[in-house]
């Protein structure tokens, strides 16, 4: 199954038999791989969400015993009380799963795989084999992480940022034993997966576009995926280096991240000479671009969904590309704003503060452009559109608090409090989840050839939106009162304990949000199997993926790949009856790009259709 031969005999796929394994398991077809990413992501997401439910219960009812916890967690939930160590493990794994496994692999993995070849007009990824490897590395990495939940001492519990020495000294907390090692193994596998994926995405976008698909005709989704892939490609290796050193600190007695640690605490060897801050720099050099690796695909999806469902061209296409690029570039020089108070040089604090606040400009441009796209539109309020609008709302709410946290001075009192939790759950957690949901609702027909139930989708949206705001908005006030994050209970402090009512409210809202996801899950799997058959182009969209047949077809288009004559956003163009003009429809008198390029009339069409 080599990709390039497919160009020539894609229609022979009937000849070599696809077995169950080559079709569904070790598939090299990008559409199947995207489904694999999505379903793995959904499973991991469910797991991560269930974890959050457990620790939310603990936060809301610190004195209550829930006997079912003992059933689920065994010795970690003795007598129905969550063990404080396991609380830390839960928040750690919840963070890891959500950030890496759901919002990086589940979101960008799914949609990059699905949309890049389809929207740029390619038969498949540049290297389908590497693409398959990418998924299987991801799968292995998730398997290792899930496995780590069951080891003695529990999974990693040093927070998802795994700062040493907490993570470097196996004796520091129970979770720093085998659990931490497995976390690192899982992360290294994950990095391998994301590099394999990223290299492929970039090469495909740059080299395999169909005829006429100029860079300035690419849908914004593709631009977002391109920048995302570049970000991942440049930042994940740094985490790889960082993790490698951490592995050595843990297992081989080095002290890259350790200084002045007494031998007794450090496994018999006195450790000195390194610096814990070093790890934080290496981690956040990934960690900050990671935020945009999560967010940009969601914003790309939103751009596409909002334009399609407003029946309007996206406002300021070039400005949108510019702001994606600007965000991408800036994201590499601002990582230190996570570290203002870690003992970093205050001068660097000033440098990072400057860069961080500049990011607000392209973000603001994006927001205003979305608003301008909605203005005077003809909005089709489908579930996908509602989620996209929800994303913009959450992006504003969460983004604005970034202006507080990016300000080094204000960070002094807000650092690591619930204010931070509220901020990033709104802007990067919920917003990216909303983008993912929007994408799922929008491209479900393309993925499974069936429609999702609209009513269920709308109910899902409203419950999710309400619960997202109810859960995360009040947290700001806890943060402003100085309640630190990652506290097992606030009972030790009178001035924090007053928030117990609010905590209960948040937990109930979170449970509601969790139930809303059940609606989604049922809808998703029900529709995937038994949903109504999807029409060819259900949303009257312009992009190329809707010109490919609904059936699973390795090679995407049975005939020639359509040529492209226009950008992706010719909606409601004056002088046309239809309110959309697909990218592969030429204007009157517009020559075929091939002809335009060679000066020859197109010779291929007849030949191509005749050759099979």
């Amino acid at each position: 199954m080599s990709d390039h031969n497919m160009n020539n005999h894609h229609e022979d796929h009937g000849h070599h038999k696809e077995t169950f394994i080559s079709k569904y398991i070790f598939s090299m077809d990008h559409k199947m791989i995207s489904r694999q990413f999505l379903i793995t992501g959904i499973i991991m997401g469910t797991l991560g969400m269930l974890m959050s439910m457990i620790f939310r219960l603990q936060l809301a009812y610190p004195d209550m015993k829930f006997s079912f916890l003992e059933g689920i967690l065994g010795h970690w939930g003795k007598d129905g009380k969550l063990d404080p160590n396991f609380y830390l493990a839960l928040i750690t794994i919840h963070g890891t799963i959500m950030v890496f496994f759901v919002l990086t692999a589940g979101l960008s993995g799914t949609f990059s795989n699905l949309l890049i070849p389809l929207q740029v007009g390619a038969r498949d990824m540049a290297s389908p084999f590497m693409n398959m490897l990418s998924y299987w590395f991801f799968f292995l990495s998730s398997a290792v992480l899930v496995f780590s939940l069951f080891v003695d001492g529990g999974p990693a519990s040093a927070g998802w940022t795994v700062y040493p020495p907490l993570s470097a000294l196996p004796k520091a907390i129970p979770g720093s034993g085998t659990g931490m090692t497995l976390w690192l193994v899982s992360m290294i596998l994950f990095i391998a997966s994301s590099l394999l994926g990223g290299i492929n995405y970039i090469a495909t976008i740059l080299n395999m576009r169909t005829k006429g698909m100029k860079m300035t005709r690419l849908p914004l989704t593709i631009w977002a995926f391109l920048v995302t892939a570049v970000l991942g490609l440049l930042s994940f290796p740094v985490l790889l280096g960082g993790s490698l050193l951490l592995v050595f600190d843990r297992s081989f007695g080095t002290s890259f991240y350790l200084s002045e640690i007494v031998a007794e605490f450090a496994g018999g060897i006195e450790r000195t000479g390194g610096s814990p801050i070093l790890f934080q720099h290496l981690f956040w050099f990934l960690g900050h671009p990671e935020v945009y690796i999560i967010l940009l695909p969601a914003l790309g999806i939103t751009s596409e969904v909002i334009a399609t469902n407003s029946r309007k061209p996206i406002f300021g296409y070039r400005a949108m590309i510019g702001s994606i690029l600007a965000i991408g570039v800036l994201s590499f020089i601002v990582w230190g704003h996570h570290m203002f108070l870690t003992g970093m040089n205050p001068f660097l604090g000033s440098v990072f503060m400057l860069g961080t606040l500049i990011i607000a400009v392209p973000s603001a441009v994006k927001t205003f452009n979305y608003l301008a796209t909605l203005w005077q539109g003809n909005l089709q309020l489908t579930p996908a559109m509602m989620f996209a609008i929800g994303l913009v709302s959450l992006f504003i709410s969460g983004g604005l608090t970034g202006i507080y946290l990016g300000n080094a001075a204000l960070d002094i009192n807000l650092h690591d409090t619930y204010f931070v939790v509220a901020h990033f759950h709104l802007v990067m957690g919920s917003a990216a989840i909303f983008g993912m949901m929007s994408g799922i609702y929008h491209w479900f027909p393309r993925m499974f050839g069936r429609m999702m139930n609209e009513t269920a989708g709308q109910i899902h949206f409203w419950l999710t939106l309400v619960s997202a705001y109810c859960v995360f908005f009040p947290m700001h006030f806890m943060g402003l009162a100085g309640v630190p994050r990652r506290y097992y209970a606030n009972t030790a402090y009178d001035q924090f304990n007053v928030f117990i009512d609010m905590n209960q409210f948040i937990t109930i809202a979170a449970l509601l949000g969790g139930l809303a996801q059940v609606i989604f899950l049922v809808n998703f799997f029900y529709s995937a199997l038994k949903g109504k058959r999807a029409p060819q182009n259900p949303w009257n969209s312009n992009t190329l993926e809707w010109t490919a047949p609904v059936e699973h077809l390795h090679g995407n288009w049975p005939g020639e790949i359509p040529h492209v004559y226009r950008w992706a956003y010719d909606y409601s163009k004056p002088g046309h009856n239809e309110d959309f003009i697909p990218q592969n429809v030429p204007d009157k008198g517009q020559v075929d790009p091939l002809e335009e390029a060679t000066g020859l009339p197109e010779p291929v069409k007849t030949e191509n259709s005749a050759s099979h």
Partner: protein
Amino acid sequence: MANTTNLSTDKKTAWGGGKSPFSVSYGKLMMWIFLLSDAFTFSSLLIAYGFIRYSFPSPIENTIVKPLSHVAENFTEAMNKAGLFVQDHWPAPELVFNHFPFIHGIHLPLFFVSLMTFILIFSSVTMVLAVEAGHRMQKKEVANYMLLTIIGGAAFLGCQAWEWTTFIHEGARLYGNPFGPRSFAALFFIVTGFHGFHVFSGVVLNVIIYLNVLNGTYEKRGHYEMVEKVGLYWHFVDLVWVFVFTFFYLI
């Protein structure tokens, strides 16, 4: 073969799609991108080195031992006594890496590592000559140059093995270091080890390509691009060594 013909006609024109904005095949592009990301991995290790190095006082100036002078067998101990190797000063590299195989009792700072550098640069040259011969479709020439490259790579690995052995023999460990701060030895092992790992994979790749060349795989395919791609990787390994050499031994 319809598409292949298309591509050939599209080549000189400026349309948007269907071809790389860089005029390279996707395979080479992927290799370039991979190398870019690998450069970041190495950078992260070198950055860790820079950070830790800068958090220590500079090496104590060495005014005792001149190059080519005779030194005692237990050189490290002598330096320890002379106060040139102390726990809170970074050691001067010329006092650490001053051995040469089969030569004892003479202070030969950095001679051996210069030899290693030479070997690696030379193997890079043979590699690029193989690529060049590939453009001319000279199977035999390609094969010969590939073989030379493989020998160069293996020689480099051998040198590195010798250097590590000597270093360990003198008492350097991941967790301890007779020359000064323990981070020095650990960083040395990590950075050169990671580079050595790259050289090793490069040699393996080269061997595979060499066998393919001998089999005539690329002759049949009509082009030697695979040699070019592996060549890119091999030069990258050389490139990294330039910086490892500069940062670890010279500065």
